[in-house]
């Protein structure tokens, strides 16, 4: 008789999920599933609302990456207006987005994953969290708290509120940047550099310690997807989509965001509220691909800023082709923080950055619009249809975390096979199974933008006839 282990809830991730692992008669791991247990219904609940409310409404999909949702949404609305937004508004949105990447990546790296990386995957679960880290590694914990704060303060300086600001609007942004705010952000940059450079150096020197995690955290060939700019460089807001195969060869390039539906399909599984996007030309589930920090560094030709480019060159030489282990997402996050600080520094020194013309006005000129951005967790797509009055009649959203659903599920299976023996799940096996999920930094409140369930992620060992054996 086969049996099932349940891990529930999965902790130190953003949202609701559990894991079930099926063990066969011989005590071998047969299957593993990552269940997202929350559903929120945004694609329907926005129906009937004026399109211009959308950037503020969809921020409430996620308190960690509200900026990504507001910009993807505003871009879809720009397309409905049919306007080209002022040049400086593009830059201001980009600057705001840098603040978000800094705070969101800092949260994932320091608050959620650093306890595993520094205290060890096998350390005492009661202490293995940000509070434990404050005691065991106080200066690193403070680096995390400060870096996250810098990101949030940047957002505050532009948008007037740290979480769910109402600054990004259809047609641009609703206030120019003041010299005072510009100076305030410029003053924060040196400390941000210091923290991320210090962190990169200890992280790189500790990589050797995590050989087993590197070997098993979703380390298998898949395609990768991400936005790139016109030179093929890393791009978070304005680029076009690129897919590469597992060898690194470009499969499709220069995909205009509004054509996403020609390349990305969405599949449903009966056991999860999170759908699984796949590369349409290859079908389901062969069309497995990954998005997010490491995927972006895999698909691009470089970052386009000097310090990040140096780190990128080191990153990309980890393996002969694309970097396969999703463990390296932790590394990629730090590189993207560095890139965001450089971008911030460059743009804040642009001569026109204080320009007052930051918004284009128009009535809705088109009935449909698509907006695509790279959110911290991966490619984020908002697609709306409106009626003559500009009221939303239909919406589709493919959220960053969804892109990685297939890979997270396979990764959970890979780690379970390596670390589970028999029908008992040890504490250290459990934490590594959750660790692979953390490497993707999934945002499950986002991913289930679509209604809701149990707090946290949970892991379950289940028999083939459905009896729960062990639950964590």
């Amino acid at each position: 008789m086969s049996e099932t282990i349940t891990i529930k809830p999965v902790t130190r991730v953003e949202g609701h999920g559990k894991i079930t692992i099926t063990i066969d008669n011989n005590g071998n791991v047969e299957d593993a599933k990552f269940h997202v247990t929350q559903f929120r219904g945004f694609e329907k609940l926005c129906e009937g609302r004026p399109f211009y409310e959308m950037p503020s409404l969809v921020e409430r999909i996620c308190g960690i990456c509200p900026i990504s949702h507001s910009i993807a949404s505003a871009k879809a609305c720009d397309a409905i207006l049919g306007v080209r937004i002022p040049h400086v508004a593009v830059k201001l949105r980009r600057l705001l987005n840098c603040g978000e990447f800094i705070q969101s990546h800092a949260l994932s790296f320091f608050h959620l994953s650093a306890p595993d990386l520094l205290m060890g995957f096998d350390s005492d679960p009661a202490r293995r969290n940000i509070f434990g880290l404050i005691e065991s590694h106080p200066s690193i914990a403070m680096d995390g708290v400060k870096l996250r704060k810098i990101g949030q303060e940047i957002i505050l300086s532009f948008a007037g509120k740290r979480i769910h600001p109402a600054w990004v609007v259809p047609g641009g942004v609703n206030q120019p940047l003041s010299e005072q705010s510009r100076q305030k952000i410029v003053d924060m940059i040196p400390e941000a550099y210091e923290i991320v450079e210090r962190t990169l150096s200890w992280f790189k020197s500790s990589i050797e310690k995590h050989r087993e995690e590197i070997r098993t955290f979703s380390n298998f060939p898949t395609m990768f997807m991400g936005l790139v700019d016109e030179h093929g460089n890393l791009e978070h807001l304005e680029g076009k989509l690129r897919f590469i195969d597992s060898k690194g060869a470009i499969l499709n390039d220069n995909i205009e965001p509004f054509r996403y539906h020609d390349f990305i399909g969405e599949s449903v599984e009966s056991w999860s509220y999170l759908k699984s996007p796949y590369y349409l030309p290859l079908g389901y589930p062969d069309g497995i691909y990954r998005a997010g920090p490491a995927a972006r560094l895999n698909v691009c030709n470089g970052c386009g800023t000097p310090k990040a480019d140096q780190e990128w060159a080191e990153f990309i030489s980890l393996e002969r082709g694309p970097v396969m282990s999703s463990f390296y997402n932790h590394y990629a996050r730090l590189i993207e923080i560095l890139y965001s600080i450089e971008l911030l520094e460059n743009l804040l020194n642009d001569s026109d950055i204080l320009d007052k013309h930051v918004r284009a006005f128009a009535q809705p000129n088109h009935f449909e619009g698509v907006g695509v951005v790279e959110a911290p967790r991966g490619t984020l797509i908002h697609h709306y249809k409106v009626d003559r009055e500009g009221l939303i009649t239909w919406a589709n959203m493919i959220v960053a975390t969804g892109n990685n659903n297939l890979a997270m599920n396979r990764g959970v299976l890979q780690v379970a096979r390596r670390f589970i023996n028999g029908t008992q799940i040890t504490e250290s096996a459990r934490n590594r199974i959750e660790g692979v999920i953390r490497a993707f930094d999934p945002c499950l409140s986002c991913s289930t933008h679509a209604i809701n369930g149990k707090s946290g992620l949970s892991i379950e060992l289940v028999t083939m006839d459905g009896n729960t054996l062990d639950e964590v």
Partner: protein
Amino acid sequence: MSKTRVATTWLDGCSGCHMSFLDIDERIVELASMIELVYSPIVDTKEFPENVDVTLVEGAISSDADIEEIINIRKNTKVLISFGDCAVSANVPAMRNRFERREVIDRAYIENANNNNHAPYQNIPGLMKSARPVHEFVQVDLFLQGCPPPSEAIYGVLSQLLAGEYPDLKGKTRFGA
């Protein structure tokens, strides 16, 4: 002196209220010396513990699992705080209430899917007909509104509770802001 036992959870919310909590920034160190976070998405406890002094609940009640969880929390908590507009009024999650549950699910899993189109049903919580505020299910001791509540208000409530005072929220927070 033993530390005050604090728990936090999110139900049908966006995690924004929790992020606003983290927005107390460096004061987290000071807080760490006074409270023990016994259950929260950011620590590894799997079961909601007994004898919790204060629990902050973010999000509306939307699924059968949420109901089960909130009842268990109430049983084991002295002071239960509705944390943010979603918990207080059901806020954004309640925007789905004007549609049939079927329609909301069909949009996501039937209309907006290319493969295997059907409503998920296995090994996941069942969705309620409508998203509801927390106090419809259990007694709530304190309402902390805001979307999210400002970190100053969160810090203020906790420090006043730690000092043994009844929190005064006047002028510190309001709906929506």
